[in-house]
């Protein structure tokens, strides 16, 4: 419940009302005062003062002075008349309500209008400043342009002047040359003949050719050319310098990317998975899992690890019959054959694996290295050392950092040397 402030005092003239409202210690700010045409409210929680004025006032011109513990209102009457009392006496509750709301609305509208007006003036100011700055910049730019134009014209003139100089100089030179020519032809011809007889083949040959081709041109070029030629060194002795290039860690984006080949490889793999040679009658005897080449490959790997090479070979064989496009099957079978010393079969399988491992991409790098190594081993065990070395070097090329391959390659090289020496 607000505390009503009732101890107000007022007096009036024909045009204004002076109202003094003591504040009982509360501090007032302009925000606490609300005034409209016929309604005045001062609300400083918990204090409240409210008055419905006797007659409308011009609230734009009215003022309120806050100080000394009270508020002093100077309200300008809209119509100059003497009021019977400050407030409307028999103001019913509804009228009060209505007036209040009205007042609030009116105040809001006024506030809106004010902000609108403010905005418009602000925009106008902005526009004006913009135009002013633009004008300034224009003048600046123009000034610079003019200076540049002047430079340009000056420079163009200089250029013309220089060009004319060139043309004159050329003309002068050609006239001079003609004059000299007539004087010089005789003694020069003599000298030239001497030179021809003295110097041996190279310059003689070339100067002869020169004569033939330049006979049409002014003779001056022949003579000056000839003289200069005597001073020029002979063409360099041909030689070749070999260079190495710094390898790039990150190849240049699209120029060197192997995108196309990688796509091909992935595509191939996907296809290989999908092939199932399902035309074998024995298939019906097999269990579900035994028809899965991957499962068979795993089985084979396990048997290889345990040393059961024949079993592993069987597993791989069945897997191959089911799907003959998986390179890893051939690769692993080659390893088994190596252990079983079926060297020719090992070579066959490694070769088949390599065939399937095209195109060469970083993805199948390891597989290719293994294939080469296994084939190389098989060759060496068959004493075909050169072929073996070829495979080892191929493996090294793919994976230059593998020390074992390097060592083995070295060994093979030694073996080859020894056999050639002894034979």
């Amino acid at each position: 419940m607000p505390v009503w402030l009732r101890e107000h005092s007022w007096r009036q003239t024909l045009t204004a009302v002076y109202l003094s409202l003591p504040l009982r210690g509360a501090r007032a700010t302009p925000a606490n005062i609300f005034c409209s045409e016929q309604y005045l409210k001062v609300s400083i929680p918990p204090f409240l003062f409210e008055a419905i004025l006797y007659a409308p006032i011009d609230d734009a011109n009215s003022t309120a002075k806050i100080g000394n513990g009270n508020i002093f209102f100077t309200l300008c009457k809209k119509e100059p008349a003497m009021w019977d009392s400050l407030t409307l006496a028999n103001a019913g509750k509804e009228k009060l309500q209505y007036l209040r709301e009205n007042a609030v609305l009116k105040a809001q509208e006024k506030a809106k209008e004010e902000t609108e007006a403010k905005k418009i003036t602000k925009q106008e100011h902005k526009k004006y400043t913009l135009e002013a700055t633009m004008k300034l910049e224009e003048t600046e730019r123009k000034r610079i342009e003019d200076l540049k134009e002047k430079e340009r014209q000056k420079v163009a003139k200089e250029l013309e002047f220089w060009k004319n100089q060139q043309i004159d100089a050329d003309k002068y030179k050609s006239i001079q040359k003609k004059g000299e020519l007539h004087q010089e032809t005789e003694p020069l011809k003599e000298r030239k003949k001497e030179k021809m007889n003295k110097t041996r083949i190279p310059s003689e040959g070339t100067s002869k050719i020169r004569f033939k081709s330049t006979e049409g041109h002014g003779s001056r070029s022949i003579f000056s050319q000839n003289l200069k030629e005597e001073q020029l060194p002979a063409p360099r002795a041909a030689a070749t310098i070999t260079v190495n290039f710094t390898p790039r860690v990150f190849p240049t984006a699209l120029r060197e990317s192997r995108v196309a080949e990688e796509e091909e490889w992935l595509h191939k793999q996907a296809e290989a998975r999908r092939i199932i040679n399902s035309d074998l009658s024995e298939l019906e005897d097999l269990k579900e899992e035994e028809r899965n080449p991957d499962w068979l490959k795993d089985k084979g790997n396990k048997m290889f690890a345990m040393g059961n090479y024949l079993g592993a070979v069987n597993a791989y064989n069945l897997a191959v019959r089911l799907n003959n496009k998986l390179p890893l099957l051939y690769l692993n079978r080659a390893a088994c054959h190596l252990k079983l010393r079926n060297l020719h079969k090992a070579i066959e399988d490694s070769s088949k694996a390599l065939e399937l491992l095209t195109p060469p991409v970083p993805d199948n790098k390891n597989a290719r290295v293994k294939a080469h190594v296994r084939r190389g081993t098989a060759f060496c065990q068959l004493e075909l050392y050169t072929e073996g070395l070829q495979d080892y070097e191929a493996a090294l090329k793919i994976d230059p950092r593998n020390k074992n391959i390097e060592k083995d390659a070295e060994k093979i090289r030694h073996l080859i040397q020894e056999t050639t020496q002894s034979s």
Partner: protein
Amino acid sequence: AAAGLERPQVVSHVQQALNYTVFDCKWVPRSARLLCLGSAARGTGLVQLYELHGARLELLREMEKPKPIKCGTFGATSLQQRYLATGDFDGNLNIWNLEAPEIPVYSVKGHKEIINSIDGVGGLGIGEGAPEIVTGSRDGTVKVWDPRQNDTPVANMEPVQGESKRDCWTVAFGNAYNQEERVVCAGYDNGDIKLFDLKTMSLRWETNIKNGVCSVEFDRKDINMNKLVATSLEGKFHVFDMRTQHPTKGFASVSEKAQKSTIWQVRHLPQNRDIFMTSGGSGSLHLWKYEYPAQRSKKDSEGSEMGVAGSVCLLQNVTLSTQPISSLDWSPDKKGLCVCGAFDQTVRVLIVTKLNKI
């Protein structure tokens, strides 16, 4: 703004729209004529000869060749002859007499793939020694040719047998201060820069700047090698001080990152070897000045000499086009006059002012 106007200005004098892709543009020495080399839409090569007349370029002659032409140089020809040496997309090196351009004066199928870059030395009255042309190609080899010797190069720098090749993108001659000395510098697409000494026929120095090397140039071909600028992809260029070679560290260098895009070309001003211009993939040109350090060499901890690199400061930059400016050439006769060709099929003649005041 006032201070800005005291710096050298790049003034665009003439702009000529072409109806073909221009790969190289060169001034004809001792004249106000320039050549544009490129590739026509139907896959043939074009050589156009223009003359500068006031504010426009007048087409004097147009020559069509069977294969698109990538690069050309006047470096190995005498001032009287002014023969143009060109490398084309098919790996052919041809030398043309522009007065009689139907049959080349010299022709050889030097490389298996496009010749990316060509340079010549020993001609134009600059330097001494035999006239030679060097070509660098996508097949990874760099070959030096003598126009007096047909069919075989006088030097061949090729990758080791069996090793994968890297494209050679740029070549430059240098150190040709007497009859015997000469070096060739080659830049490759993997960032390798190799310096070949032609007197000893050996590899003198190599380094790798991580990004593909688009252009190399010595500040002067005919002096004891002084500076080498190498530009690369991703907006970087390196300036090497070539006077002092350390046994392990090689040459000292300073590098600068100028633009976000590839720096296609670097060209030194013929009249001042410390000023050079770089052209970029964003269509901009930057004019740089190199400042030497107080001491050009110092001793390291073991007592061997090593070089000290100086610093580079940007004098001016200007954006002329939205497409890369792939070729740039200063006129050897008029200081500040240069021509540049861009991939928007225009060739522009520019004048750089106030170079005397640098």
